[in-house]
């Protein structure tokens, strides 16, 4: 098995990629996908620590995170669908009706 720290660095980078995706992409769907990457990074942490600490809480936590990830995707896609119905696009460039 490889050291925990290597896994952590890996998950940190994965998380970073996810954050980047949310920040820089203009396509709502890809933003949503990047969110999933973030969640997965956290999950990897949890699993790694569950093994390191020999405690199951991490794995249980990970299951809940997946549950939440699925929920968020479902709702997110529903919102995007509603948006698409009205605006015919999923590019966030066109989300500019609200500003002050």
């Amino acid at each position, binding site marked *: 098995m490889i050291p925990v*720290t290597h896994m952590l660095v890996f998950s940190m980078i994965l998380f970073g990629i996810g954050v980047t995706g949310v920040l820089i992409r203009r396509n709502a769907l890809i933003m949503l996908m990047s969110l999933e990457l973030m969640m997965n990074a956290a999950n990897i942490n949890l699993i790694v620590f569950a093994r390191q600490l020999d405690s*199951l809480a991490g*794995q249980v936590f990970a299951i809940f995170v997946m549950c939440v990830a699925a929920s968020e995707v479902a709702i997110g896609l529903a919102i995007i669908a509603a948006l698409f119905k009205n605006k015919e696009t999923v590019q966030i460039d066109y989300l500019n009706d609200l500003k002050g």
Partner: protein
Amino acid sequence: MEALVSFFSHYMLYILMGLTLLTAVGVVYSKNAVHSVVALLLTMILVAGIYLMLDAEFIAAVQLLVYAGGIIVLFVFMLLLVALHKDEAQRLFNTYTVVSLGLVAFLVIVLAVVFFGMPFGPEPATVTNIVKGGSTEAVAGTLYSTYILPFEIASILLLVVMVGAIVLTKERVKS
């Protein structure tokens, strides 16, 4: 043979991690959203592989079921419905891409360096708890005893998601 053993136990995870990062980058930087989805699918499968290597078979299976069987299908559906003939490739990135990239890269590097230096001690010799009776049973034992409350909340959460998704997407019946 010994070489193979050490190869598997040592480098397999690195290979998986490397591939995961590659596909993750693919998710973010693909021009075509469908390619992103494919990359995401591969990422999820690879992550499931990582879980498998970390004695979390159950989580790995759930990962595949939830992501491959559920989430990404939704994504693909949405993509096929929504972004098919759109010229989405006109402007892929935000105007402040470089700034964001720099910022995130900086943070990630700093944190990664910090993490790298963490004194986490040696890996545990035995992981009795989490593989007791196969990880499924152990996870279930914890999930349905200690974490029964979040479990119930999660059930409400899923109900809300169902209601919400229907509310948001159903055609409005005008009176």
